[in-house]
């Protein structure tokens, strides 16, 4: 098109030049001028050429304008698509940040009398600014109004600690079937107003009776409190509202990590062999706050020297029918609930088979010293010697400990354990040990000066220090 236009313009210019040239020569120019205008027609003929140039210019201008408008249209559409996309992503992240703020503040919220959450009708809101009140007014008068808020619910408002929160508010409440809008069990529809079960708080925990039990949510009513051991579940609802009124909500369930139901100071699904009279295992609660457990329990045989095994009430329980789903427990304790051992002990080495090897490391500070609980996750087997710690040690493999070693809390291994205390001070564990290889066909070995004393209080403290973790997360369009 450009070539044609250029040729055309060139032709017009040539025509114009010829006309002007002839005019100078006194010759009359025949062409586009008016034939009835007499002598002045020469001038008009030149003007006629200008008219063609004008048309040409208009055509060119219209083409340029069309191209320009198209580009503007494309750019505007692109910008709109990009803006919508950015808004969606931004809102999703804002909702997640709201959940994270609520999760991280849960422990302090529960300890604060002004923000009660004991009853499912007691709600706490974290609001983005003092101007946001989800309980005031109505849906038409308040863009941040929470349509689910109604009497007899009570609400406490907390201000977000984020510098520029992207969410409008986060609602925290005890989870019930009615507020979660689904049935957790077959005790009746949550929609029924006569179903009182639908208003009972939901908990998350383990069955104390079921073998290979995984942690699950349950309505804490009927026989559940007796059979299950767990912690309350809190439901978070986040509202993100942008300047154009678009609302985006997210729901999340959070709870504390429940303590696996312990039956013995040291449980091993694998056979246990006690190699020394200096191995002392006690199921009596050192702190005196919990019930007495067995000293040792295994799905297989328990053999060796029982001289140091405490006798009351049941000393050892071999051939037990009970088993733990160690994989599920370890999975629950993975980061971010815990920290990888590489981060706690940066100098830790790994053998050719992937086993972590550590000597003289601190896995949390001991009570009486800095007293700092530390949950640690080990992705593989661990050989540990001359170390100490406090917290929860989750080993996704075999665990070998050589004394001296002192630990306060719960040790969980997805494999067999081998404790060799050697000479005094040996191995001293205050809390409990739970070990289970996948097939249970290995041998756990206890030897040297090894002591495991059940301590319910220390175990409870370590789990309480874990804080809250997310059970489930869903966008609610």
């Amino acid at each position: 098109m450009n070539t044609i236009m250029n040729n055309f313009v060139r032709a017009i210019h040539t025509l114009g030049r010829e006309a002007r040239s002839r005019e100078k020569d006194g010759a009359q120019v025949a062409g586009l001028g008016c034939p009835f205008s007499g002598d002045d027609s020469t001038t008009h003929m030149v003007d006629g050429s200008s008219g063609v140039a004008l048309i040409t210019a208009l055509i060119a201008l219209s083409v340029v304008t069309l191209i320009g408008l198209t580009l503007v249209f494309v750019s505007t559409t692109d910008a709109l698509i990009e803006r919508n996309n950015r808004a969606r992503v931004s809102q999703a992240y804002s909702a997640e940040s709201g959940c994270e703020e609520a999760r991280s503040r849960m422990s302090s919220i529960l300890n604060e009398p002004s923000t009660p959450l004991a009853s499912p009708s007691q709600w706490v809101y974290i609001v983005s600014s003092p101007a946001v009140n989800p309980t005031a007014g109505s849906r038409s008068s308040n863009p941040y109004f929470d349509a689910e808020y109604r009497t007899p619910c009570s609400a406490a408002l907390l201000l977000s600690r984020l510098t520029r929160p992207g969410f409008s508010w986060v609602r925290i409440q005890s989870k019930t079937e009615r507020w979660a809008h689904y049935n957790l069990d077959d005790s009746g529809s949550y929609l029924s107003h006569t179903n009182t079960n639908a208003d009972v708080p939901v908990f998350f925990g383990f069955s104390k009776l079921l073998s290979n039990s995984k942690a699950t949510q349950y309505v804490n009513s009927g026989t559940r409190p007796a059979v299950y051991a767990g912690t309350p579940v809190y439901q978070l609802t986040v509202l993100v509202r942008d300047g154009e009124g678009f609302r985006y909500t997210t729901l999340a369930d959070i709870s504390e990590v429940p303590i696996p139901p312990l039956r013995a100071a040291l449980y091993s699904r694998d056979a246990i062999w006690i190699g020394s009279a200096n191995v002392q295992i006690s199921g009596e609660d050192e702190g005196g706050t919990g019930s007495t457990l067995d000293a040792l329990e295994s799905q297989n045989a328990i053999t060796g020297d029982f001289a140091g095994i405490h006798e009351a009430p049941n000393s050892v329980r071999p051939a037990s029918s009970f088993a733990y789903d160690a994989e599920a427990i370890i999975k629950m304790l993975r980061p971010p609930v815990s920290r990888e051992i590489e981060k706690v002990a940066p100098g830790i080495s790994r053998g050719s088979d992937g086993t972590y090897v550590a000597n003289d490391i601190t896995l949390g500070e001991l009570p009486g010293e800095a007293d700092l609980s530390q949950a640690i996750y080990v992705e593989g087997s661990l050989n540990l010697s001359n170390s100490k710690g406090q917290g929860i040690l989750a080993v996704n493999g075999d665990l070998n400990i050589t004394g001296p070693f002192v630990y306060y809390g719960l040790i969980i291994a997805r494999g067999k354990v081998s404790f060799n205390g050697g000479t005094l001070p040996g191995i001293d564990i205050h809390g409990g040990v739970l070990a289970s290889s996948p097939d249970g066909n290995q041998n756990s070995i206890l030897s040297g000066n090894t002591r495991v004393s059940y301590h319910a209080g220390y175990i409870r403290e370590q789990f309480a220090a874990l804080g809250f973790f997310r059970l489930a997360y869903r966008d609610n369009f």
Partner: protein
Amino acid sequence: MRHSDSGISLIELLLVLAILTILMGALLRSMDESQTIATISRDENEMRQNLQDALFLLSSEIKMSGFPPESFYDREYLQSPSSFKNLVASGLLQATPQDIRFQGDINNDGEVEYVHYYLSGTVPPFTLNRFGGKLNRIDGSLPSGSPQKLSEFVQHFQLKYYNKNGAETSALQEVLLVEVHLTMRTRRVDPLTRVYRTASQSVRVRPMNL
């Protein structure tokens, strides 16, 4: 003067007609090109919109894979013969560079859907397909039906999977992050450049329940 007053000669008329023809030709040509530009722009917009829609669908559905987890329900209820078998999502079922299968309650209606995204075709443009539907309530079996074509103009589609350390992984149980890369092309060749216009975009999705 008399001669010029006599009217327009045939040559003059022809010249005028020729000029007008050229003018009209140029005008029509420019209109045609404008239409072509508009068409390719529409194509490009359609392609970009498809790209955004496909990525949004992919990312929002992958995000919900694994929801609800087993822990969402009472275990005894799940094991009861009377409970529906489409309540719990298994999460990722297959994770390859051009194929992803998963289960999740992607529309938050309390029933788990099975979703399969895959590419078909041997040469570009490929077709991006989505096969999905609710699991059978009674036995948890896969849904029946035909796949839905998300786009027939896919130039490149790749999925990458990352573990907690940010390293690529192919182990399903390790996957914590999914990266989706999608390149689409226009339906028609751009007449000015003689090539297809393309648009690419990548998005990283963290399935929140895996």
